């Protein structure tokens, strides 16, 4: 049996790969990448959101040939990038409010359209709070009207900026400052929360995709896909928060990877409301591997091991695996 040399082994999933044609290499491998979110920002050590934002915007900048404007919701990303007198952004960027980033982006897009600036593209972005909770109304309106905006949600599954309180994206059993690890049902209760990507798909917009900071090539490919389309597009990126999740700063990417490999965070693409592509699980792991390294789930392992709860979490993962066909 002879293997076709279709994908190179060395660095194949790594950021760069000297064995690939330059145009096949990741944007992040390019020394002249735009660093749209540049150094000197005040994000925590190992911040997944800072990483995700640079990945997304650098890719978008490349796709838009540098003609990009961003509207940002209130949140960690906004606070750690623009404390007077320093801004870490290198693109035209506006922050208005917590709940209105999609609408502000719509306004930007409308202004560009009316001025005939077809070369300039618009991105709206925010955390899970600004997107799936307080911003959902504006987001839905933007989707429904077909506004030409790519909205990116950096989902770290809680209100980190205010000190880790529960959001509509907080997973069951997770401990937050408002879902303490006490009582018979420690952490966030089961049966709550919502899936912004599925809500977005219900609008039958041209493009919806999920991604994580653990699979850069996938993330960049999706940004490129999204930028190739017009109308409302939605990208939901899982970004680790070492502070809020209680993991090592150096573990950000590994934890995000475990989220996908456990099936708890399905990675897929959808067009016009239908799922068109799914990233299969490559190295399946039980949810326990994902939960264990995170302090927000510590109460599932001590003082008494909560097999019942772990099983419940596992069944959520299994449902994703079955629902999205994450395993062949």
């Amino acid at each position, binding site marked *: 049996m*002879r293997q076709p040399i279709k994908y190179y082994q060395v660095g194949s999933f790594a950021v*760069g790969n000297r064995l690939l044609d330059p145009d096949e290499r*990741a944007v992040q491998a390019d020394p002249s990448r735009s660093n749209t979110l*540049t150094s*000197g920002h005040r994000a925590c050590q190992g911040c997944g959101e800072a990483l995700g934002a640079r990945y997304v915007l650098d890719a978008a900048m490349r796709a838009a040939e540098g003609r990009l404007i961003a509207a940002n919701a209130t949140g960690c990303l906004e606070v750690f990038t623009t404390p007077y007198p320093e801004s870490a952004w290198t693109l035209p960027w506006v922050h208005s409010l917590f709940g209105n980033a999609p609408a502000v982006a719509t306004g930007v897009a409308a202004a560009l359209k009316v001025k005939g600036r077809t070369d300039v593209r618009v991105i709206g972005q925010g955390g899970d709070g600004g997107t799936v909770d307080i911003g959902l109304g504006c987001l839905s309106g933007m989707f429904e009207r077909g506004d030409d905006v790519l909205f990116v949600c950096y989902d770290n599954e809680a209100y980190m900026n205010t000190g880790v309180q529960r959001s509509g994206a907080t997973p069951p059993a997770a401990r937050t400052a408002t879902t303490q690890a006490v009582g018979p049902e420690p952490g966030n209760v089961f049966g709550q929360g919502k899936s912004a990507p599925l809500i977005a798909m219900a609008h039958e917009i041209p493009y919806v995709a999920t991604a994580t900071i653990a699979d850069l090539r996938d993330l960049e490919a999706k940004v490129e896909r999204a930028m190739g389309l017009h109308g409302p597009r939605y990208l939901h990126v899982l970004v680790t928060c070492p502070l809020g999740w209680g993991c090592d700063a150096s573990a950000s*990417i590994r934890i995000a990877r475990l989220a996908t490999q456990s099936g708890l965070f399905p990675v897929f693409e959808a067009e016009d409301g239908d799922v068109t592509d799914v990233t299969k699980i490559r190295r399946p792991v039980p949810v326990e591997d994902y939960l264990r390294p995170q302090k927000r789930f510590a109460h599932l392992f001590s003082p008494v091991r909560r097999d019942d709860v772990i099983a419940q979490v596992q069944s959520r993962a299994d449902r994703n695996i079955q629902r999205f066909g994450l395993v062949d």
Partner: protein
Amino acid sequence: MDKPFAITLDVGSSLANHTGTWRTERPRYVHRLPPCNDGCPAGENCQQWLYHAESGDYEAAWRQIMADNPLPAVMGRVCYHPCETACNRTHLDEAVGINGVERFLGDEAIRCGWTVEVDAPPSGRRVLVVGAGPSGLSAAYHLRRLGHAVTIYDAGPLAGGMMRFGIPRYRLPRDVLDAEIQRILDLGVELELDRPVTDIEQAMREGGFDAAFLAVGAHIGKRAYIPAGSAAKVLDAVSVLRSMEGEGPPQLGRRVVVYGGGNTAMDVARTARRLGAEEAIVVYRRTRDRMPAHDLEVEEALEEGVLVKWLSTIKHADGGRLVLERMELDEDGFPQPTGELEELEADSLVLALGQETDLSLVAGAEGIEVTDGVVQVGERMMTGRPGIFAGGDMVPAERTVTVGIGHGKQAARCVDAWLRGKEYRHPPRPGVVEFDELNPWYYSDAPRTVRPQLELARRSSTFDEVVGGLDASTAKFEARRCLSCGNCFACDNCFGVCPDNAVIKLDEPGPYRYEIDLDFCKGCGLCAEECPCGAIEMEPERI
């Protein structure tokens, strides 16, 4: 535009905020010892030449091998590749086919006629090498490249030693061997054949040599006392194999019994099959797991229909009849007689019980110590007699071609140093990289490329080479399975995953062409964690 105060800011102004002050640990790029290099008796830098092969630069890859080993094409065939045994990729799927790539590179070099040069200016010193086997050739090669005048004396009619007279051609085609030996001679190494050395001191005096490296090997087959009646045809393995070269094949008959459990035993049994023996039976005292012969050899032998009688010794040989006694292992794993006997038909019995060295040449030499039939040498390969070094099968070590080649290189360095009035010091070895120090996620799944094998029918009838080689594409594929353990391969992960853009990618990108921007590095450790090959370490900031 007069911008509003404070609410509107200049882009990129955060560069004034040096977040490096947050750091308590800093990343550091390190070079670690990959297990393949660590496991190679010839001291090859396997990983380095695989790196060149990945990009298709086969000549650079070959030259990297040649820095340590002058016989890649041979090595790619006969080496038992401990590099692959050690390879970290075995934890992922299968070991990288290092040996196969090496053979491809060796063959490619012969095909393209690549050669190497003498790197150093003439030293004016003369070195005698006794024995043109792997060890001697290797020493001669390295000494020559170091600028010394080298002469090889060999007792045999042809160079190659055991590579020629011990290893059957179906494992090592002679044209390959000849080509690689010739390349060494072309460097200006003198070779005198049929030139046995009986007294080393005398030989050195007469030849005016400043130093000598002895590598006469072990060519005398061991004899065990077996009560044998008349007409019992008993031969020894070494001479059987030697007779395959030239003199004309030996008459072994229909049923051949080989006594012994080493690689030589396998070689003889397989040779016998090829010579037309209907049955080639190996008799061995212990069990398979205790057999000294390498698995690969045993496997191929069994495939070719060689039979093995485990836990048996030969008590008596008479005419066409052998008497065997069944053994059993005691708790220490030693075979003990059971008294149970059985008979076995045999036209000939070949003893493959190991070889001994002819040490007559050092008999008269002052200070050379001999124990258990082998010459004792220090860590710098020098015997008790200053200026006389020894290696290969005649010193205490595993008797393989690869070890011999390694001895040759090591000896050459030591001789060179000695000639310059110095003492050779091996550079300090960094720690070996364990699999759990890698981040294997980034390596895509790629099972090993199996080398094409000659179908069995032809194997049992001809002496054609059994194991085929890789072609350019499969060799490249195989090379690219390398994980580059412990050494940067310029994958850009560190550059990409830093949330603070604190990794600088330097001009002329390549391995280790990165720099940590300490103005902004917060010391999160993501670069180290996500480095696929464990080439970045976090070290605490000095307080």
